């Protein structure tokens, strides 16, 4: 099974890279862009895990290792079932 985990800054934390991208987009004339948040994507290949097991495993990994809960939040999804 393949899962995708998205880690990004919490809304309350300043994201200087996102801000810079936003400014760059504005300079290029994309006035419609209201905000940009930059994050990281992890793709994990899990072996022999059921969907149910993944639901415990993935958030644990994300919370414990991939994201720093003080500044970051995460979201995840299964992108390939087997």
């Amino acid at each position, binding site marked *: 099974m393949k899962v995708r985990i998205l880690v990004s*800054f919490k809304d*309350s*934390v*300043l994201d*200087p*890279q996102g801000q*810079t991208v936003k400014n760059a987009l504005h300079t290029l004339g994309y006035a419609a862009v209201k905000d940009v948040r930059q994050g990281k994507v992890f793709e994990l290949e899990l072996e022999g895990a059921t969907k149910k097991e993944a639901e415990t495993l993935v958030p644990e990994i994300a919370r414990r*290792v*991939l994201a*720093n809960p*003080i*500044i970051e939040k995460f979201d995840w999804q299964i992108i390939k079932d087997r």
Partner: protein
Amino acid sequence: MKFGVVQFPGSNCDFDTFHVLRNVMKRETALLWHKDHDLQGVDCVVLPGGFSYGDYLRSGAIARFSPLMQEVKAFARAGGHVLGICNGFQILLELGLLPGAMIRNKNLKFLCQHVRIRIENEKTDFTRAGRKGQVLRIPIAHFDGNYYAPARVLKDIERHRQVVFRYCDAEGNITEEANVNGSLGNIAGIRNREGNVLGLMPHPERASEALLGSEDGRTIFASLILSLERRKPARRPVRRERARHD
């Protein structure tokens, strides 16, 4: 007293810190390997600067899982002294021994330059050789040194006088311009509430020899020596002959 400098894969200020503690401060110093469980009886653990594990996930995020760090955690919880410099500070934050987190410098560039920091709390084991308000000239070298903590945590840190160093100008004023990396409250270094763990972004080991432009960093090492040697019968410093040759 005996210092221990931890070596993670990717540490790159390990030898620098070792050199200064042993050859400049003239104290027995051990290198501690991250895969070991043995703290070799040190009185103070120093987590040096560098790019542990390439800083690939987040600065300091992987190093905290190493076997030795479990010992360091227990050592700190039992009141042992731990000093984290730059990447070492980031590891202490990731480990939860100190509150807060680091994000990218506000100008999104790596910054290597001399900065000035002001001693905010001189009554710590890391600063007692200095004076309150004393300005130290010490270099920084980091990409992720922009200190962040949620408002509630920040308030807590301030209330318990945990901020030990703030970025300031040459006269000691805490200004926006002096805050090169954008840290909240100009924070350059904090301690834990118990006072035995300190993390700071500037590199005191790079400011410990006149030849390299500043000796202000010695204040921190000298404070530790003062604090820890007062507490226990002094060990004999290493023999000079050995100390002279690196």
